[in-house]
């Protein structure tokens, strides 16, 4: 089996694979970055440097668990590097010498003064690092001091500081965008105007992760008080994907993008690549499972590329960007209808109640006597189990089985039933001929205006 090439080049920076550790707790020291590179990470963005080490608090992290699974989302109030600049620079040089083929980027954040930026850029580049990432994104702590997202939320500031950095930088400059804005594109365009070579996004999302119900304190708390923190982890992926696609599709930006935000599996990685990312940055997954988490990500991406016939990531990158657009470009004449595979159904009724209460009342739930059901669905007899001289059918109770059937006439094809169904492949959305011609909403508006079509009648509701 010839494995596909996962190597990338990101505005001149080469990396054996697209998986970089994002700037954060896992990239705080040479010890960690060495372990990460040995584990298989292609690159790392060193935890944000400043001229003076910051002072941190205890505790720093809070998490959202989801019905038994830990850390669907993580929030932190930890600040940038708490180590001296000299110590960091010495270790960066050490790592770069040890791992010349890995991508080593250094994240920077200093006060908004030209000299300060000039100084730190020059000193950092003396380490031999491959590039710089400007942290315009941290929503907590540093933003109160006029840094981080305080810069990243104002296009003019972002452009100005990028320009200062570019005045002296010899290596590629990546600007890291904050999601704590209505639209990331104006900042991305400003960074581009300032001379940025690449964009990375998203930084963490401003958040309060929870409240302790016994003490009424926020989570995490520091001697009883909390502060808004940066939210990350699998929960933020959809927000990141949207912003990634927005930036990737903006012709005014047009520079390479490093995708960040909830990447934990190879599937997440592939989705970021398809929506325009060249490199991928991961933090929470490494904080949760350790650096070894990169192994299944690499393997999964390779197997998927083999299956799809992709030989390199350039064939994958941005493949899905153009298929996202405005709602008005969607075809009103496309129709799907839910189809329930009666042999696969386990009769949990979740599709029914979701449709009935949460959607469009288009699934019928009929109680069929157990004997009649077994007569109609002889395959279900395989599910019977016997005890005490009698047989029992999972999904049956009080002598009947709920049979779920789609009411095709009123099904609007919303997907909800297929999303809640716990059985693989049981509910599928099947395309069928619509009464409407193929026509986008924008075209519909034009045709309506010209009197070429009749208004579309609202669907029937029960």
């Amino acid at each position, binding site marked *: 089996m010839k494995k596909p090439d996962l190597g990338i080049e990101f505005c001149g920076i080469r990396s054996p694979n697209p998986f970089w550790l994002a700037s954060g707790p896992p990239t705080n020291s040479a010890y960690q970055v060495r372990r990460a590179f040995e584990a298989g990470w292609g690159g790392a963005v060193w935890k944000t440097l400043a001229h003076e080490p910051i002072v941190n608090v205890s505790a720093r992290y809070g998490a959202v668990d989801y*019905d*038994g*699974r830990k850390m669907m989302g993580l929030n932190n109030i930890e600040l940038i590097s708490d180590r001296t600049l000299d110590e960091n620079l010495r270790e960066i040089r050490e790592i770069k010498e040890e791992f010349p083929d890995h991508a080593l980027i250094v994240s920077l954040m200093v006060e908004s003064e030209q000299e300060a930026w000039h100084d730190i850029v020059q000193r950092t580049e003396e380490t031999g690092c491959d590039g710089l990432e400007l942290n315009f994104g941290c929503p907590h702590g540093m933003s109160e001091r006029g840094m981080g997202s305080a810069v990243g939320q104002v296009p003019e500031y972002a452009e100005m500081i990028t320009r200062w950095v570019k005045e002296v930088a010899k290596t590629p400059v990546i600007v890291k965008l904050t999601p704590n804005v209505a639209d990331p594109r104006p900042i991305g365009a400003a960074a581009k105007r300032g001379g940025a070579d690449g964009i990375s996004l998203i930084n963490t999302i401003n958040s309060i992760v929870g409240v302790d119900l016994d003490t009424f304190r926020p989570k995490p708390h520091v001697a009883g008080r909390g502060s808004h923190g940066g939210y990350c982890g699998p929960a933020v992926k959809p927000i990141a994907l949207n912003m990634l696609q927005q930036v990737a599709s903006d012709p005014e930006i047009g520079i390479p993008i490093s995708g960040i935000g909830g990447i934990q599996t190879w599937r997440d990685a592939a989705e970021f690549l398809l929506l325009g990312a060249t490199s991928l940055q991961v933090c929470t997954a490494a904080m949760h499972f350790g650096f070894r988490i990169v192994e299944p990500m690499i393997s999964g991406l390779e197997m998927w590329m083999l299956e799809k016939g992709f030989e390199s990531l350039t064939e994958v990158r941005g493949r899905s960007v153009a298929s996202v657009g405005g709602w008005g470009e969607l075809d009103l004449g496309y129709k799907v209808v839910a189809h329930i595979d009666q042999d696969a159904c*386990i*009769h*949990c*009724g*979740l599709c*029914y*109640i979701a449709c009935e209460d949460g959607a469009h009342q288009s699934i019928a*739930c009929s109680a069929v006597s157990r004997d009649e059901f077994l007569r109609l669905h002889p395959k279900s007899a395989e*599910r019977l*189990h*016997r*005890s*005490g*001289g*009698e047989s*029992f*059918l*999972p*999904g*049956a*109770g*009080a002598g*009947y089985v*709920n049979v779920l059937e789609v009411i095709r006439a009123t099904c609007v094809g919303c997907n909800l039933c297929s999303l809640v169904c*716990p*059985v693989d492949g049981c509910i599928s959305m099947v395309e069928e001929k619509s009464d409407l011609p193929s026509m986008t909403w924008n075209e519909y508006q034009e045709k309506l205006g010209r009197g070429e079509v009749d208004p579309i009648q609202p669907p029937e509701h029960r």
Partner: protein
Amino acid sequence: MPTPRLTPERLAANFADLHPPLTAQEARIEAARCLYCYDAPCTRSCPTTIDVPRFILQILHGNPAGSAETILSENILGGSCARACPTEVLCEGACVDRTLSGAPVEIGRLQRFATDYAAERGLSFFEAGPDTGREVAVIGSGPAGLACAHELRKLGHQVRVFEAGDLPGGLNTTGIAPYKITTEFALSEVEQALAIGFEIELNSPVDGPALKKLIDEMDAVFLGVGLGRTAPLDIPGEDAPGVWEALDFIDQAHRKPFEDCEVGERVVVIGGGNTAVDVATEAVRLGAKETTIAYRRTREAMPAFAYEYEIALADGVAFEWSARPVEFVSDGGDLRAVRFRRQRLEGDGRAARLVDVDGDDFEIPCDQVIKALGQLPRGELFAQIDGLEIDRGRVVIDPATRETSIPGLFSGGDCVSKGGEIVDAVQDGKLAARGIDQFLARKDASG
């Protein structure tokens, strides 16, 4: 009859929980498996219709007290049922996870987690309804009577509960293998039920004349007297000292330390139901060296549930199929063996019946025989109530109201079913209380 030759430690280990309780963490992990079905098959398969998905979600979301309330509001003996219900043929038998992932959600153990949480903290969720001025007699404090009395109190009626024995709770207290329900737990659950405000009059048997008087004097009567003694085999030697009834054998383990219980070296259990399994496994755990269950039909026809059969096998119980006892053989007053006659089935389907295979008798040596056969109905009591309709030993009731042929006399539990599960008896009692409430409302309406 000798007492066990095992150490108290070994006996305690043998009688430890069949299904140990879940920790809070284990409960959450298991609860996360529940799909939260709509019109859930598990709830439909629960005789008391406990809202299973709801109580499991309450565990998952860190509300064990609310979970216990969900359970106990439908089934005041939810803690006992969590321990002793044949979940395999009830809630867990219907769980759709059997199809989805090959194993049902462990509903019984989750129910135990929630009910234990409430029991350990002495939480009681129910208050008596506004006083109606009505008073109902409840005969028997077993699961049916207890559930009926509790539900009647919720509805605001006063109750007097009469218990013939010296312990409350009926077979729930002394008739279930102690590795399923301990005496202490059964009694504490009764206490918890009493918190709503009623008492049980112990050592107060109600005979025919007393029952007639109660029917006349009280506003309504619930009859939950269960069943009587084990049906006799009517074979020679049945009155030998080594011949026991199953209920007496189980009862002793609830009343005295295991090391004082009487058990033979070689025990033969006669019967093929769940009680036979309970008795046989209990004999093994008390220290019997050889224990055999002898059943007159085949394994396929054995009424014991599959998981009960597995317990017996795991405990090393031997099985003798198609064997009908014909004589208890004693030597100088000491039981020596049971003589059996081989059986075979003649005919097909419903017409099939067992017939003796002549010339094939055999003996199983033993020093103790335990008869785990059906119990007899309380016919002598019923016969004293004129007009009380009985069908093959069962009290006949209106299934909707649980009212008998005598106006104002309601019934439920084993005296109606001739032997059901705890959960069935609880439902009977609960529905009877509602039937009584309607009956009293009609009485009020008609002045």
